[in-house]
């Protein structure tokens, strides 16, 4: 019984060794080349970090990291500079919070509908329709939001809110339509496809024994879904939510067009009906006009760094959560 290596040796000696070694070299070269291309992704992330930190260091040296993050004023005029990111961080957080609060329950409803409750024939077309929501470019969402949706929100949501509960500080202000509420609602619509498709995958990964066990205990349809499926896929759904949060935080164009674009202390979102600004929208609005000789570009890159840190943390967390759940499916538990 010859060993594998000995057999290989024999075959090799019997064939054209030059061509063989050339082939072997090309094999290795191919592997190295493809490895190189794959590491470009890592290189991009590293480069992003380096570029953002280097580009924003002037403004951090001037105001300090904590000073920049907690500052409220925004004045790019040379000589009277003041750059503070707090209003925009709050704007980002508030719009994302609205997006998640409204978008995730709707997405869960859709996911439950598609994975548990709908007849087979309907599933294909409906899921295609939902995926089509993701295909629409964000600038068209912004255009629609600016010329159509804001009037819906203003007339059907904000005016009643303002008339009946306008005395509450969170609903104070005149209903204009271009404010955090509209931006949050558009973001909610935009994260629906992402959250619902990942939730649906997670729900489909729940083993049937869970559902059967719930039914055997006498559960109704909804109770079976709640006990058998939702409970089990909790962390996956949480991961889907975080993915949607990541999408909402990074969304630029649709938000820029409907958020009202306030600057400085006026941009702090003290009320849902107030115009504000997010990190991404301020960068998009001001970058082209920032005087390269001043601190303005560095301040905008500083905002980009904060956004980058948010997005990185959120996306990494989401990947870890979703990965863990879907991995269980592949190395099946039962």
């Amino acid at each position, binding site marked *: 019984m010859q060993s594998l290596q000995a057999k290989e040796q024999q075959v090799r000696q019997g064939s054209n060794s030059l061509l063989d070694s050339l082939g072997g070299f090309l094999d290795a070269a191919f592997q190295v080349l493809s490895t190189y291309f794959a590491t470009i992704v890592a290189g991009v992330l590293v480069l992003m970090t380096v570029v953002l930190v280097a580009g924003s260091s002037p403004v951090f040296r001037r105001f300090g990291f904590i000073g920049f993050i907690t500052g409220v004023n925004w004045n790019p005029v040379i000589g009277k500079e003041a750059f503070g990111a707090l209003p925009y961080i709050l704007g980002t957080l508030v719009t994302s919070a609205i997006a998640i609060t409204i978008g995730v329950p709707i997405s869960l409803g859709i996911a439950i509908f598609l994975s548990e409750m709908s007849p087979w024939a309907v599933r294909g077309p409906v899921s295609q329709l939902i995926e089509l929501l993701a295909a629409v470019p964000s600038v068209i969402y912004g255009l629609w939001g600016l*010329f159509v949706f804001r009037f819906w929100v203003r007339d059907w949501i904000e005016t009643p809110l303002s008339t009946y509960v306008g005395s509450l500080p969170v609903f104070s202000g005149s209903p204009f339509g271009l404010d955090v509420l509209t931006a949050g609602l558009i973001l909610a619509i935009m994260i629906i496809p992402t959250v619902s498709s990942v939730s649906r995958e997670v729900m489909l990964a729940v083993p049937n024994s869970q559902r059967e066990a719930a039914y055997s205990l006498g559960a109704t349809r909804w109770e079976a879904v709640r006990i058998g499926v939702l409970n089990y896929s909790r962390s996956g759904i949480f991961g889907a939510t975080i993915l949607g949060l990541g999408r909402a935080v990074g969304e630029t164009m649709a938000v820029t067009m409907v958020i009202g674009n306030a600057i400085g202390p006026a941009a702090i979102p003290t009320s849902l009906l107030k115009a504000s600004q997010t990190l991404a929208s301020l960068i998009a609005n001001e970058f082209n006009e920032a005087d390269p000789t001043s601190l303005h570009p560095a301040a905008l890159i500083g905002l980009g760094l904060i956004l*980058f840190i948010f997005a990185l943390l959120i996306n990494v967390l989401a990947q870890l959560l979703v990965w863990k759940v879907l991995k269980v499916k592949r190395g099946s538990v039962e």
Partner: protein
Amino acid sequence: MFGLCVACVALAVVPLASILVEVVLNGAPALSPEFLTSGPGVIGEAGGGIGNAIQGTLILMGLSSLIGIPTGVMAGIYLAEFGDVVFVGHSFLTHVNSFLSSSLRFLNNVLTQFPSIVVGILAYTTIVVALGSFSTIAGAIALSIIMLPIVTRTAEESIKLVPGSIRDAAAALGIRKWRATLSVVLSTSRSGVVTGVLLAMARITGETAPLILTVLGSSVFFQCDSLSSCTYSLGHPVDALPLRIWRLALLPYDYARQQGWGAALVLIIIVLTLNITVRLATRGKFGMMRSRT
């Protein structure tokens, strides 16, 4: 309960329907041959069109695909072929390879839905500042960075779907691994890879934020008088449809609003045609892959 879920679906479908209806209704009157082929007119006066924006979008799509597709497919090949190695010998290199591939796959997924404006800042600080002007090539590189993770992931997933018997058959014929991967495996997984590529191209057609920081937008056509003298060439600003839509939407004139809707109609036709073609052609297959793009 069933009713509640149906209501959720309706809540998602109504905005989609409204967007499509509004874009078609408002944009159709603006479409005309002059609108589609001429450059923008004077700001403040009606007339002119989005011809150079369409041209710019096509150029950017082509250029970024040229950069992004080979890179993405090769990266997908690495993750699929050399990634999950079931090794017999526990050498140091195979451990390194396994760690590398799982972390690269993780980073790739992280980069997929990254804020595109941060990619724009990256392209600005590296290419625009280095070259001294806003340029087409900067925009193309920014878009290819956005395109890369999508192409990589879909390529990896569709190459993994190729049954092992095909690779074994190629090995039995004495075909080297590199040759087998490129000729046999890749052409077997052709439809999946093409799906991913088309979806990625549809995605970058609609991207605006990185373009604001890299191509700036312009009002002239990209043209080459002869092969050696290109005015407004790759090193110069160029216009693009989504960028043009944004700028038109913010102008206070009625004609600008009209043109914005018209441009939006053209953009949505391009994007939805790509998307619907892909989804119709791969109905049922690659379900998981498509939904996570």
